[in-house]
């Protein structure tokens, strides 16, 4: 339904121009919960403002339902935004805020009242309809902002880091709430966040952005298990990187006892492995087997993080699930064998900087 085709945005002119978005292209399907994830300054908010219509793109096309809307003003796009600071109108009541879009469209009074009632019920705030929006708590303001943006039934709802101002507990609640709203309304959501956990738990698909470019678009599971590059691997979850080399279909790690056969082109590579896949204590077949010294153990309740270093000093972290009985998996100072199972290894091109 929404297609971005080589969408580009630069600010400034001539030599001082800064390119915030480099030819971004992707498609979003009807009813999808799509997340733009990236560190601050990666261009995700700029992209959202382009979709909302607050900024015109410098190049490329933005096609909604077959129509290029790149230069359509925001008040004529069937796209509404939940702003980071909510941007509720402080001089209006909750009901007036929620009914604003319908009022601006000149809908009849009775229809507005009915929609407002339905929207407030949807976000469970019917009892606060007459309250001034400034007199609400952060979580309540958040719900009003949602109801206000949903009231006119947009084709796409844009959410600009809507949960970042809430405390931890409320944020978890709102994550569930948002997902429920999205499923109940069947609307397409484009959600912007820098919080990887938020992105992983809520999204159907995630676009990871850095430096104004899309790094990878994939489902949360694929993003975690099959990162396209070192940036994505490092940004999502914790991970280990080890420099290695491929020769004649065999992966050689300088610290490993023997090479491992892999289907990969020859040349230098970066080996990536998640801490939970590092096996301690025994040498396994079909794995790179290394010797490592234990530096320290950090207890995390469900699991223990074991910080190790290899013979050449490069660090390695293993995550071991805590058993009900059995105590610690190893002790600091010990030298133990470590296996990196072949199926858990990801080989990334190593030419790029992290």
């Amino acid at each position, binding site marked *: 339904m929404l297609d971005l085709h080589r969408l580009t945005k630069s600010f400034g002119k001539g030599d001082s121009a800064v390119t915030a978005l480099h030819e971004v292209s992707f498609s979003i399907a009807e009813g999808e919960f799509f997340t733009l994830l990236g560190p601050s300054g990666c261009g995700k908010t700029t992209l959202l403002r382009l979709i*909302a*219509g*607050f900024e015109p793109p410098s190049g490329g096309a933005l096609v909604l339902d077959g129509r290029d809307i790149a230069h359509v*003003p*925001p*008040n*004529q796009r069937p*796209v*509404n*935004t939940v*702003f980071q*600071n909510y*941007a*509720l*109108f*402080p*001089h*209006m009541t909750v009901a007036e805020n929620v009914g*604003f*879009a319908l*009022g*601006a*469209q000149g809908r009849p009074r009775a229809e507005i009242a009915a929609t407002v009632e339905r929207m407030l019920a949807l976000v469970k705030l019917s009892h606060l309809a007459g309250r*001034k929006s400034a007199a609400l708590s952060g979580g309540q303001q958040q719900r009003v902002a949602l109801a*206000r*943006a949903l009231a*006119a039934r947009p084709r796409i709802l844009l959410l600009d880091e809507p949960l970042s101002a809430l405390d931890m507990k409320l944020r978890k609640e709102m994550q569930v709430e948002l997902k429920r709203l999205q499923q109940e309304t069947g609307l397409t959501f484009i959600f912007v966040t820098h919080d990887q956990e938020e992105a992983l738990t809520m999204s159907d698909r995630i676009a990871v952005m850095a430096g104004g470019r899309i790094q990878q678009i994939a489902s949360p599971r694929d993003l975690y298990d099959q990162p396209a590059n070192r940036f994505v691997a490092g940004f999502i979850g914790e991970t280990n990187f080890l420099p290695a080399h491929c020769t004649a279909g065999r992966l050689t790690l300088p610290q490993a006892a023997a090479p491992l056969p892999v289907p990969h082109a020859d040349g230098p590579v970066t080996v990536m492995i998640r801490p939970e896949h590092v096996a301690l204590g025994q040498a396994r077949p079909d794995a790179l087997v290394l010797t490592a010294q234990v530096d320290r153990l950090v207890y995390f309740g469900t699991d223990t993080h074991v910080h190790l270093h290899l013979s050449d000093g490069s660090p390695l972290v293993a995550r071991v699930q805590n058993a009900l009985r059995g105590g610690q998996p190893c002790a600091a100072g010990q030298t133990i064998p470590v296996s990196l199972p072949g199926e858990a290894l990801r080989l990334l091109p190593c030419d790029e900087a992290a």
Partner: protein
Amino acid sequence: MDAETLAARADARRRWGLAAPAVAIITLFSILPLGVVLVYSFLAPGDFGNVRWQLSFEGWFSVLFERDIFDDTISLSDAHLTILGRSVALSLATTLITLVLGLPTAWFIATRPLHQRAFWLFLITIPFWTNLLVRTIAVQEMIRSEGVFNRLFLWLGLIDAPIQMMFTNFAVLVGMAYVFLPLMVLPVYSAIEKFDFRLAEAGYDLYASRAYCLRRVILPMVRPGIIAGSILVFVPSLGAYVTPRIMGGGKSMMLGNLIEMQFGQGRNWPLGAALSLTLTALVLAALIWYTRLTSGGRRNG
């Protein structure tokens, strides 16, 4: 009596001590003179100005009425009513003109980058450096019969004879709007500056046209600034003296000029005092309306 009460009393005494100079000045130079004016308004006029100490309601009576010199029939005083009406009308018109001109100006300044705003505000304050008289005469130079505009229009062939602009209500209006414009711009600017432009963006996102956004989002939020500016312009306009004197001459008199006349060549101090108090009452009414508006605004939003 416990220590706490004693301490509270000492504290109250200290506060009164601090307020004393202000209270003394207000009493001496504001309340006392106002009392004198109030007393004078109920006395009879002296032969050469001043007052005779004799109770009389003639001053108050003459504010709105006049007695026929021959048969003593009472009728409404046309001259006074015209001047009163003109004062209120011109002051309202001045307020409206300064608002129409001042709002976009204030908007322009408030939307400049932060480091440029000081410069534009500085330009707004420059007229305050010049004497009111000089500024008013400068406006006169623009619109008088041999002034800049008339000469320009004649040269362009738009008119055959100079347009009479001086000594009309229009001249007074131009003069007052020019003089009081900064008083509108500054409070409106400070209100717009506090306005969160993301709210306008939100309105625009929610299908509002520019006009709808202005009416429903921006104006309600800068309303306190508009009301403050209107009062700052309306109140001194009502009592304006120099501008109507120069721009309106004897033809377009305002309340301030009428009062001055009673204390000067009119030699009717009680009438002047009564007119002064009428003016004060008008100002007070405007201020009460203002407080109602703003406090009501706070209650509702």
